């Protein structure tokens, strides 16, 4: 078991990087929730904005996936 401090650090770092996924979840929920709030006020304008919704979700999600990538790199590539 001794001498595994580096591996322990990898696992702790991967776990910390996973926090970023939760932050991305907050971001995606914020985008979708605000879209729904706006869409219910003016449903006739909502249909034209679904593309914008998906672009916003994609940008928010990309950062979460970056943190997931950091976790993967710590687990398998370091």
């Amino acid at each position: 078991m001794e001498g595994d401090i580096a591996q322990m650090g990898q696992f702790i770092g991967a776990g910390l990087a996973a926090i970023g996924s939760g932050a991305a979840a907050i971001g995606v929920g914020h985008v979708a929730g605000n879209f729904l709030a706006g869409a219910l006020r003016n449903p006739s304008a909502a249909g034209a904005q679904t593309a914008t919704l998906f672009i916003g979700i994609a940008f928010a999600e990309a950062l979460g996936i970056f943190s997931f990538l950091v976790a993967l790199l710590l687990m398998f590539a370091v």
Partner: protein
Amino acid sequence: MASEAAEGGGLKIAPMDQFIVKPLFGGDTISWFTLTNATLWMAIAVLCVILLMVMGTRNRAMVPTRAQSVSEMIYGFVRKMVEDVAGKDGLVYFPYIITLFMFILLANVLALIPMSFSATSHIAVTAVMGFSVFFTVTAIGFIKNGTGFLSLFWVSSAPLALRPILAVIELISYFVRPVSHSVRLAGAIMAGHAVVKVFAGFAAVAAVAPLAIGGMVAIYALELLVACIQAYVFTILTCVYLKDALHPHH
């Protein structure tokens, strides 16, 4: 790796083993010409695209068959997306964009077949598509607008003192585009398939098996949604980048 020595004789979950590229006909070395499971499933995806789009529309019936109506729906959907986002003059690049869309969609959906290989989960595959979009769009921007393309980085609606700082930020965000473009697709597909495998590992423990199988069904349905949405997102971002190249003025 997190190897859980649980009850019932050492449960071992290896969710990333499904992404290993293996040669199809034995051997260990992989050269550029080696047929691997990655090339096999990419070829199957291309064949399915040809089957759907060429064979489906071969008869051009007035009352469409199922294959013809599916291919017409996809064609109309992508065409409308290009027209809405990139504008009328973006329709010249419509063949390239629908090729990307169909390949990514079919590769994502085919990867959901059990024991198949998910080609789009590899950054090597998605980076080729992401960087080719980046280089194509940059070339189009310079050919269409000349040096006027650089006004993309010079935000004329901002106060003059702020513009150099914004130019640096815009420049950085422009060059991060191909990275985020490709890593988003690969990361989403990889993460989804790893989650399915983790649930499949839990299903080996009898106590939680019904729960794990129920979770797997739910995750699988979500993965089908993600496969389509990621193809849509990749395509619509290509359209957004194309719009920036065609109309760089803010």
